[in-house]
């Protein structure tokens, strides 16, 4: 079975979780033998942008020593053989047309999403 993971909710509790929970569960399932591809759409395309920095938060005497590093987590998925796509129009609409994205990420026009969905057995839209 092959599953397309569609990630569209962006920066939801990522500071508390130290990651994006859907990127995380994708890593965990890949480790359990899952065959997965990932589509970043909507504002989640920002996960592919290099230079994200969530460091430095502190609340009173508590300091966050291990902030989320989402672009690194996305890059690690690609290194594990998971195909990761971003929707071109969503990238452009957010002013990221010329931005440097994670190496190996694949740009997909919105019109190409149905064909990407067709090649998976299931589509999980998170």
């Amino acid at each position, binding site marked *: 079975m092959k599953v397309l993971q*569609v990630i*569209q909710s962006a920066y939801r509790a990522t500071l508390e979780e130290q990651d994006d929970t859907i990127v995380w569960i994708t890593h965990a399932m890949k480790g359990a033998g899952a065959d997965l591809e990932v589509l970043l759409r*909507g504002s989640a395309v920002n996960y592919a942008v290099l230079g994200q920095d969530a460091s430095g938060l502190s609340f009173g005497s508590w300091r966050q020593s291990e902030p989320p590093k989402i672009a690194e987590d996305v890059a690690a998925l690609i290194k594990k053989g998971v195909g990761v796509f971003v929707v071109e129009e969503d990238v452009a609409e957010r002013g990221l047309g010329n931005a440097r994205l994670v190496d190996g990420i694949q740009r997909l026009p*919105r*019109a190409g*999403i*149905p*064909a990407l*969905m*067709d090649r*998976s*057995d*299931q*589509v999980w*839209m998170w």
Partner: protein
Amino acid sequence: MAIGKYMVIASRDPFESRDVDQLYDLAAGIVREGNEVTVFLVQNGVLPARFGARSEGLTKLSARGVKVLADEFSLRERAIGGDQLVSGVTPSPLDVIVDHLAAGGKALWH
């Protein structure tokens, strides 16, 4: 190649979420690829199905070959009677989603 069967479950309304229009476009795009698509409106997703609401997106969907169903309970909960529905939207029990899953179809929640 076998025809893919998709159920796109729309729980948000276009007044709150601009993304709903893109969801409708995605459903139409899946049909263009040669698949069968049902858009199932549930929760606030039924709000644009009321005649007089901003429902052009749903009307266009129906014209583009997408079957559009609306959850009977969500309609009743929001006082949308069957005679108030825009053309192309049919009230339906939620059972059709379970039918679809049991038959091995792809289901997308939005």
